[in-house]
């Protein structure tokens, strides 16, 4: 087993050099890294929650700083912190129940557990917490949807829970860590299967003889469209090429290879084509707490065009893309400026950039992302189903705890 620090350094390095691309890959790697951090963390007898939280925070802080624009890293760090808190809470409530109602309640608890043996520990914790707070709509929904959608979450977690529950307080530390690891494993599972879960909903949204428009390339969109095609829906796809990286070309190639009728258009032709389009389906880089979307450059223009012609603008986003921060937070870096060489050939224009001899002062700006305000988004399709932009705050309340919004241990001094 390699040292955690070397793993962390390696991942930091990759983030810094911008070698990992795509929020799904980043999210998965972050979760895996945090899992090994937790599993190698020595837990003291007292205050083990704080110890775990501090360990995760210490690593998380570095990871976020390494590439602040990749919001998925921060999301996963906060998710893991949330998981630790929830597990701690669920253990605490269980202990409280144990103290209050004596051993007899153990059976009751087991019965409840038996009913929901498929639930994830986090959900149980949320349910436990719900005794203290008014129940959230999401937990109610999740109770049913999750049990139907995810039968694969084995009962091993529940079993071990049940087994270790009877063990006395001394081994509680090991149990907490064990539970947390279980939950993180589930999180990793969720991230890697989010495509499928989103794609499953495709049939409900795409109908016969519709025209779909998308921009750039997104794996989620690809799987979504393909899932609809699998279900014998016949429809057309317009792909805006997504300058300057032209990833739309790749998407179009892939779609055509899978037998979808695909047309490539330039980004600037979007407005001209939008009147023929029934629905815009795009991927996102991140979904902010207010329901705004950070998405590949050019999408705001598409969203405006869609609004003008009252075409639904649907954003596909795995739950790891949900960011609990608001776009106006000062520590949120909304954009990344990439190399101008994607736009134009350095050699051909080198004389225009020779500021020393005064022949030119050409500047090239190549932003990666756009911000699409919530009012332009019609629907979010996440792995837990479709949601309205105004509902995003509730999702975030379920996935994150408010204490973790600022991962930095030191409070930031005002600039």
């Amino acid at each position, binding site marked *: 087993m390699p040292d955690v620090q070397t793993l962390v350094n390696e991942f930091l390095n990759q983030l810094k050099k911008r070698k990992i691309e795509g929020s799904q890959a980043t999210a998965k790697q972050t979760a895996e890294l945090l899992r090994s951090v937790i599993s190698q963390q020595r837990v003291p007898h007292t205050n083990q929650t704080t110890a775990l939280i501090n360990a995760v925070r210490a690593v998380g802080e570095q990871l976020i700083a390494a590439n602040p624009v990749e919001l998925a890293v921060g999301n996963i760090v906060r998710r893991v912190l949330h998981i630790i808190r929830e597990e701690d809470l669920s253990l605490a409530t269980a202990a409280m129940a144990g103290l209050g109602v004596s051993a007899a309640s153990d059976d009751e608890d087991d019965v409840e557990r038996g009913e929901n043996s498929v639930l994830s520990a986090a959900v149980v914790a949320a349910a436990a917490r719900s005794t203290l707070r008014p129940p959230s709509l999401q937990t109610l929904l999740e109770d049913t949807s999750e049990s139907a959608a995810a039968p694969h979450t084995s009962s091993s977690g529940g079993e071990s829970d049940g087994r270790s529950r009877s063990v006395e307080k001394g081994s509680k530390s090991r149990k907490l860590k064990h539970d947390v690891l279980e939950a993180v494993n589930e999180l990793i599972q969720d991230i890697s299967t989010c495509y499928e879960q989103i794609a499953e909903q495709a049939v409900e949204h795409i109908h016969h003889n519709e025209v779909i428009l998308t921009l750039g390339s997104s794996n989620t969109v690809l799987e979504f469209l393909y899932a609809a095609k699998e279900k014998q829906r016949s429809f057309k796809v317009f792909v805006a090429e997504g300058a300057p990286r032209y990833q739309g070309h790749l998407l179009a190639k892939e779609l055509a290879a899978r037998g979808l009728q695909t047309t490539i258009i330039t980004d600037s032709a979007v407005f001209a084509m939008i009147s023929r389009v029934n629905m815009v389906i795009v991927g996102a880089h991140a979904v902010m707490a207010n329901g705004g979307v950070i998405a590949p450059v050019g999408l705001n223009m598409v969203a405006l065009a869609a609004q003008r012609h009252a075409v639904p603008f649907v954003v596909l986003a795995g739950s790891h893309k949900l960011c609990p921060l608001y776009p106006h937070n000062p520590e949120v870096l909304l954009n990344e400026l990439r*190399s101008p*060489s*994607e736009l134009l*050939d*350095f050699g051909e224009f080198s004389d225009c*950039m*020779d500021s020393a*001899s005064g022949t030119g002062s050409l500047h090239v700006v190549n932003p990666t992302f756009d911000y699409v305000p919530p009012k332009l988004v019609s629907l979010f399709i996440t792995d837990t189903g479709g949601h309205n932009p105004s509902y995003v705050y509730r999702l975030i309340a379920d996935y994150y705890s408010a204490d973790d919004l600022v991962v930095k241990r030191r409070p930031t001094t005002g600039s």
Partner: protein
Amino acid sequence: MGPPKKSAARVSEDPDELVRVPLQAVLLADSFTTKFRPITLERPKVLLPLVNVPMIDYTLTWLESAGVEEVFVFCCSHSKQVISYLEKSEWFSQPNFTVTTIESQNSVSAGDALRVIYERNVLFVTLKVHGDFVLINGDTVSNMSLTQALIEHKERKKKDSNAVMTMIIKHSKTNPAIHQSRLGTDELFMAIDPNTKQLLYYEDKADHSKGTLHLDKSLLVDNPSLSLHHDKQDCYIDICSPEVLSLFTDNFDYQHLRRHFVKGLLVDDIMGYKIFVHEIHSDYAARIDNFRSYDTVSKDIIHRWTYPLVPDAMNFGNTAMKLERQGMYRASEILQSQSAVVGPFTVIGSGTKIGNHTKISNSVIGEGCKIGSNVVIEGCYIWDNITIEDGCKLQHAIVCNGVIIKSGAVLEPGVVLSFKVVVGPEFVVPPYSKVSLLQQPIEEDSDEELEYADSTSAIGSQVDKSDVEIASEVDKTHFSPVSELGMGGAGHVWSTCEGGHEEEWRHSVAPIPKDKILEAIKTMEDDMELTHDGSFLPLSGELKPNSNDSDDDDHEDSKEDSYYFEKEVEATFLRAVHENIQESHLNLEINSLKLSYNKLTADCAGAVFYAMMKFALDTPHSSADSLLKNVQLVFTKWKQVLTTYLIDIDDQIEIILKFEEMCSESAKEFAPLFTKILHHLYNEDVVNEDAILSWEDEKKDADEADKVFVKQAQKLIQWLKEAPEEDDDE
């Protein structure tokens, strides 16, 4: 993607498994030049901050991300500083990336460095350079991907073991007016085979005054097509085969990588080593060679051409930089006054304070600087911990660590202030001046070889001695109330002897003055008027040898040429006779004529002979006998001149033919004397019997008219034919 196990790579010595050998790089942490003086007297060039990060970090970061696994850092001057910097940095603790330092005090050039590496390579197993390696300077910034270039290099190597090096080049236009790239380097001419990408010609010191470029004729003969470029930039990144190291050891006079090594390989075709080029398109690569390229590359970094090597991603444990609107990079913890204006494309390091009404634009400011009120900073590179008091004005200057600029001082464009210099209040530092606490080394001679002169090492060691000395010097200057830099100033203004005043603007951080450009454009236009068609050479194009056309031209040209050549030789000869010039001098003159008319030695022999006979003829004579006498006199005196051109038998035959021609055409007076003079020539050893005999041989099939003189000389020939037999009898 796992790192190949080193032991495994060593065990499998299968040549096909070359890919598994870890990729290595040799990084020269010394530029072996003096372009960055006086700063480099106190700190090695590779540690100078480039947009607040030492240059070597850019190079190492690139090597690491390009997949290089082992780097040998070659340290020469200030080696201690480089090594201690690397030890403190995180470079020694990287997984899958080892950095090894090699220290050498007495290397004065890149060639020496590679020779040292070769020696150590033989001696120590640990420093083994196994296979292909990347040769790079520690002042190169790049984000290119090496994969493609490496694959090409390896494939060429497999096919042709003489392909020892792949040079990385990049398209970049030069400024036609001043013959300079935007990096401040001289215009570079390259001839490349467009099909194989072989480099055929490399010239970075072309003479612009003539506006011509000389290519060896054999280049055009040997290559079916070649393209000549002057819009390429040399990135100074080379992928070398291990042979390169031994080549440097074999040719111990190779010093400079380009001037000696590359040109040496291109000219010397005995070994047949070949150099190829790989052109990069979307990637960035540039070497910081002088202050101008320091400025240009800094701007490229700020404009994010080097992504991901940009300020907001290149934070090595420092506080993070944040990119704000209009290319402003700001670290945290900056104290900036409300009224201060920070313009676009500016980088400000952490802990810097900026006072009221201060204006900063297009500049890089390091960490912990204190900038007062009403200061104007434009296009400057201000390093760490610098104090700039109120009301100063700085334009296009480089200011090193610890400098104090007192209130109201002005830095004119192109100023370089080295470490800890103090500029007095209200003092105006003149443009392009270089100021250092250290005295300017005296033993500078403005020789081209200065760059390799031992002064580098001498000064390097002098500085390495101790900081105490410098400190004491500082104290000394501190106590003097009025120094070269105004009240309370400290530092010596270096006189600009290198390059002279004329060339200062070429390599300075300051933009090129408008009048210089106008001047250059004017001279260029004048040149264009001089050329007949007035058309420019295309930036790059393929030149194919179209032999037919040029041959016809050649023919006519050569006829006229021969005539003029003979005339010139004759005139030279007559001048020599009248002015009593020494024979050897006359030979020299004729040789130069021969070269300028592109003639063979036989032509010279003919022309000189003609001149001599003409002279003999023109000398007054009464009868045929006196004419013969004249001829004999001339030959006794000037024979030496003629015989130097009689190298082989063909030259001698040429003389006889020439003589024959004279007798029948221009100087009929000689006709009756033909045999006698020929005999005389034979006696004087100007022509030998073989020549005469083969001349006769040649004439056998000629017309009767042409045989007049052969018949006349029949007697002599007969005699000659018998003579050897007599010898044999004896």
